[in-house]
């Protein structure tokens, strides 16, 4: 890894648009009531296309990205965490939850103004904290109607009709509940449109990530966080699907023209789990070594939907529309939606860390990696589950691994200087020196 090649590099042309879409999302949610619309809250993984059937004036606040936005604002985050602790919620709980609850307790929206109370909660549940998160939100807000879909039916490799039926049944119940709760009539055409948008956005995101197999990589993971986030906010929305088409075209063009994310790429890495959001500067520190995180199972598979390609590689899953499937009614839309979402890579490790290790080793091979950084994330039990087994499995597969402890949303549990020291040592073992 002594390659001294200097690659061409250039800022992303669509960067400003990504930022604009994100801020518009939070603004739309806050102003929903002024426009006579509805507000709902739920996780980034929830089946967000379903509430879109209530009308075009329905806006959401997805919990994890909102909490990550708080975490990036360290003074506000600290006030939120302390408010949650003062309200007797334990410090070792999910730090996203605690940031979010703190924002509710303080009645402060991180984007300005009071916290905009949702009209209803629409959540899914695979992590122990998902549904429970909103039980507490409902307690804190004095009662908010909540519907939550259990998706924990086992890994996609063992998907079976009765598992699909379980989810689809809950979705049908959920739609009835939405009508009753909001007093609105449900529009299946809007649902179908939302589902199609989501197929498109999540497949296209996978396609974008696949372009990072190229050496040099056209994108760095720190920048990818600002891009994938749109699908954690609004994956069912046309604006997200259209933006990803635009981004995909630009990334393709970067690959064709040899435009790199960083000019000195010579050590390709991947990370794992959410980063410590208040300390993204560690990625810039890594670049001093020419070390680039080209992504992670987290960045690729939290939202991206993938499949095995005929040549044996991992690539974007073919959408039902690409297969020529015409979606005609609610039940069909929900069945396709369920099957699609159950294949989400970041859901598989909830059943076995060994499935995750296989996926990570596959990424390491196909994305030509030199090493792996595992963030033992004290802030998220859901994505840290099985991480120690991932470490063992990846070492066994022949990849150098650096593990470090931290917390995605609680700065008190991340020691930046120590992580930098550890990274220095890791680079030394890989024979990589600073520029």
């Amino acid at each position, binding site marked *: 890894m002594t390659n001294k090649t200097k690659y061409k590099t250039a800022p992303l042309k669509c960067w400003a648009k990504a930022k604009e879409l994100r801020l518009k999302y939070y603004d739309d949610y806050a102003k929903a009531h002024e426009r006579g619309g509805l507000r709902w809250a739920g996780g980034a993984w929830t089946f967000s296309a379903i509430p879109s059937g209530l009308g075009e004036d329905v806006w959401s606040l997805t919990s994890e990205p909102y909490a990550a936005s708080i975490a990036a604002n360290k003074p506000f985050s600290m006030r939120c965490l302390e408010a949650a602790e003062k309200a007797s919620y*334990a410090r070792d709980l999910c730090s996203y939850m605690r940031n979010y609850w703190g924002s509710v307790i303080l009645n402060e929206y991180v984007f300005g103004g009071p916290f905009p109370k949702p009209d209803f909660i629409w959540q899914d549940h695979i992590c*122990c904290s998902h549904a*429970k*998160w909103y039980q507490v939100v409902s307690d804190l807000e004095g009662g908010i109607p909540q519907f939550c879909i259990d998706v924990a039916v086992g890994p996609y490799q063992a998907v079976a009709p009765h598992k699909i039926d379980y989810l689809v049944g809950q979705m049908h*119940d959920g739609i009835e509940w939405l009508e009753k709760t909001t007093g609105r009539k449900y529009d299946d055409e809007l649902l179908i449109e939302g589902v199609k948008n989501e197929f498109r956005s999540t497949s296209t995101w996978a396609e974008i990530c696949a372009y990072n197999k190229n050496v040099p990589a056209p994108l760095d993971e720190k920048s990818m966080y600002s891009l994938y986030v749109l699908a954690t906010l609004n994956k069912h929305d046309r604006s997200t699907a259209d933006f990803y088409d635009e981004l995909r075209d630009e990334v393709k063009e970067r690959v064709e023209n040899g435009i790199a994310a960083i000019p000195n790429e010579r050590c390709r890495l991947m990370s794992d789990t959410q980063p410590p959001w208040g300390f993204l500067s560690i990625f810039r520190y890594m670049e001093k070594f020419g070390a680039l995180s080209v992504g992670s199972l987290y960045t690729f598979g939290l939202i991206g939907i993938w499949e095995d390609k005929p040549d044996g590689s991992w690539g974007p899953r073919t959408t039902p529309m690409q297969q020529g499937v015409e979606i005609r009614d609610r039940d069909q839309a929900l069945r396709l939606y369920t099957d699609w979402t159950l294949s989400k890579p970041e859901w598989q490790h909830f059943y076995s860390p060994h499935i995750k290790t296989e996926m990570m080793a596959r990424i390491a091979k196909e994305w030509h990696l030199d090493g792996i950084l595992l963030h033992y994330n004290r802030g998220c039990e859901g994505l840290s*589950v099985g991480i120690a087994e991932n470490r063992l499995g990846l070492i066994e597969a022949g990849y150098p691994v650096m593990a470090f402890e931290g917390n995605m949303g609680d700065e008190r549990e991340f020691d930046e200087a120590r992580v930098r020291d550890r990274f220095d040592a890791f680079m030394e073992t890989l024979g990589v020196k600073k520029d």
Partner: protein
Amino acid sequence: MASQTVLDQETFQTFRNWRLQRAQYARQWKERTGGKIVGYFCTYAPEELMYAAGILPVRILGSHEVQDVTEPHIFAMFCPFCRDCLAQGLKGRFDYLDGIMIAQSCLHIRQAYTSWEKHIPIDYSYYLPMPHKVQSSRAIPFLTKELEVFQESLEKWLGKRINDRNIDEAVEVYNRNRELMWKVFELRKGDSPPLTGEEAMELVLSSQMVDKQEHNAALEALLTRLAKRELPRPTGTRLMVLGSENDDLEFIRMVESCGATFVIDDHCTGTRYFWNNVEVDGNRLSSIADRYVKRVPCPSKDWPERTRVAHVLELAQAYNVQGAIVMQQKFCDPHELDIPALTKALNAAGVKTLFLEFDVTVPIGQFKVRVEAFLEMLQEDDLF
């Protein structure tokens, strides 16, 4: 730690021996019956189905000893209980198991299962996707189908069919065990319960380790003895214990040595394990599914409504509880998420609470100071 009471040891000796000599019991059971033993990790495991197949289902529990073998396998932010369970496997203390299984519950304990499956040679392993949304009408049909798949898997492993009669007999044995346990626990409602909380916990723990038919016979004999038994000390303050998995008998013994008696609990090593029966109605697997979906829930499955709060308050009232010790295994998120609401509800109902956080080993001395202060506070309430 000196006990302030002198209990007859004999009454509960059988149950205590089963717990203390569980490995010896298991080996002898295998020798005697030629059957297989499956270790399970959570009480959502449908034991009836395994028992119907001639299997002895036994619960995998920890040993409360400091250990250093699980660090490479489970990140230290997960609960000490799951690490303690895995440690037992890694140390070879469950080498008599032919298989392991888990019915999906919290993220923590499933890591003990997945690491065990990977690193400890075992003939059979099974992950049952027990639904989380037990409050949905969709859960029972889903679990029924999952039980069919589990049954097929067991049949394939064992090379034999599990017929309706096998299932009926297993359900009968398990229901009988639950009914007998209720009868014993009912006695704890009285002004002078004839058994301590520690003894009650011995009953439940041993029931998770031995053949229920034998346990039933021992319970029947016990009930006869309990009818005439009196504790050789006053009941003292009537306490409830609730929270995460708890098999810490030393802690229970310490509290009861301070002038109190645990009269009821809400634990998966207590009432939650046996509270609900299988109501046989038509489809056998559906009846079993119905039991596991409708049982008193673990907090990981208690949503969107917190049904457990009402259940705990009912127990507190029915057993005339004066105070509650709310304990949690360190890092146990599902319980941590319920504790503020549960504590608030108990306090509002006039039941004062003491929160304690448990690890694999507990600081008995420090806890004793806190427990004594708590009991003193409750006893002062009696004065005024």
